[in-house]
């Protein structure tokens, strides 16, 4: 980000924390795509992702005054959206699948289409993991949470978090077997 852009961002954030609704709309326009992508990754469908997106932005607006300008604003926002998504998952009583791995081929795998394994296909693959696997996989692998943090957030045992990640990786390996 160039200095002027970053200057713009700082003034936007400041305007926003003073309750300027237009500034908030600008922040929404800039960041909503990236944040929606995060919500889609965590949630099961577009409706749920939309709910998480809305709730996340309301939280951003409510707590933007707390932003300290110490780290990246986008990183700070991402954290809010991950938390919001997790909160929604918790509301729906996340239960961890203890069943066997599904050794069947992915019925709708992007593999059939071969070609490039692009962001959408990869995202779809992650979305198809069972809820427990997916949540831990998303948090640990993509959003860089530690098992300790995951266990705190999801109110689960640290070992559960590790085993969910292990199973998620196993499942992905099965689905992606032609790519190895």
């Amino acid at each position, binding site marked *: 980000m160039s200095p002027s852009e970053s200057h713009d961002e700082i003034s936007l954030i400041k305007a926003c924390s003073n309750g300027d609704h237009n500034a908030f709309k600008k922040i929404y326009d800039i960041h909503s795509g*990236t944040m*929606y992508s995060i919500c889609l990754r965590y949630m099961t*469908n577009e409706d749920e992702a*939309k709910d998480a997106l809305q709730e996340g*932005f309301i939280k951003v*607006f409510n707590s933007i005054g707390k932003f300290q300008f110490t780290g990246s604003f986008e990183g700070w926002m991402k954290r809010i959206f991950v938390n919001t998504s997790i909160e929604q998952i918790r509301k729906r009583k996340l239960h961890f699948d203890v069943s066997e791995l599904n050794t069947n081929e992915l019925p709708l795998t992007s593999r059939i*289409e071969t070609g490039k394994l692009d*962001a959408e296909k990869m995202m779809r693959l992650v979305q198809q993991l069972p809820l427990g696997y997916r949540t831990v996989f998303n948090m640990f*692998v993509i959003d860089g949470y530690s098992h300790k943090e995951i266990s705190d957030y999801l109110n689960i045992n640290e070992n559960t978090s590790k085993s969910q990640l292990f199973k998620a990786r196993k499942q992905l390996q099965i689905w992606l077997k032609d790519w190895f």
Partner: protein
Amino acid sequence: MPKFNDISDFENLLKEQMSGHSAPPPVDAWTAISSSTAQAGGIISSLSTYFNASVTLVKTGLIIVSIGTISTVGYFQTINSFEIPQTKEENTLSLPESITTDSQSTFVTIELADNTIKSPNENRTSRRVDSKKTNPSRSASVPLTVDTSSSTPQNYTNQPIKTLENKSSTPPRITASNYNPCVGETVVLKASEKGDWFLNETKVASNTAAYNAQCRDIGTYTYYFKTAEITTRTSLTVTEFNGQIIKTQAENGHYSFSLSNQNLIANWFINNKLYSTNAPFINVTLETVGKHQIKAVVINHPCSKTLTFDVQLAPIGHFEAINIFTVGNDGLNDTYKVNISGYDNFSIQIFNSNSNLVFSTLDPEEGWDGRINNIGIECPQGEYFARVSYKLKGELPQIKNIKLTLLRP
């Protein structure tokens, strides 16, 4: 096609793809955000107008005032707290003039740090404070008037004050075999202990740790599980699949099929052969005359369903032959030809009764005038055989043997 050495290669690629990945959000998302954010946050001033903190105590003790919000995970998060030693039996708390809050749901909680009082709930009070509320109504007196003189404090001496945090982690876990069932499904609700089950107000089962919930209609159903100590609940959202295949377009044998709900995706089959996977619609060229079955196995709906659509392709081509022809210029069947239209291939060969070829052509417009190859000697009156090979568009090739009679005037 890239190859992964192990799963971390995939993960790195995924991480790279996801960083900064952007998906267009639903168009109406902003409207909801905009309306909810218009009023939140701000400074709550004159706290005492929201919270009449006049406290009457029979017993003296330490009073803790906490100001906080209900956090994202449902815990009470203290923003600020201060302790006030309460030495006199009746006193007024001096609350701060204002506090800054970033939430619509700010709670001010006053609790006694004295855990010898009758019930843990009685020494704690919370009130939601709406920030930016212009004309707050004066709250009722904080019900911290606790009479401990008649209680038996020793029973409770060591019992800690229950906090919200403790509460939210204690309910027995209830799980459902499926939180998003379909109509007609039976969902098994399980609790970690025995208790009574209620659907809304109606008791549906007693003293059992499991209940089979029949999902008959669409809707959201809240089941309550009650034991002597605690009530907890879970909600099931019963859905039904509604959708069908729609033929959106058809011209020159090119068809487009889609699903009636745009959010659905399916694996598509044509005449039971896999045609496309993971697609909201397909474009197909159908050529063969007859019935074609389009099948979509919907994969992103909890009540996943197989849909079919039949396409009947009408014949394009036409074939007709007569079996008599008279030579002469009487204007009626002067040359022999068959009627064919909408064809891919055509040939006709005509043989006499000795199986000698007397005429052949690939052009159906070219008729036989009764002479050998239309130039030689005239063939005699009698029986001839025409062998016609043709393929009409969208149909299988055919060979027809036609016995024809040549008549001369």
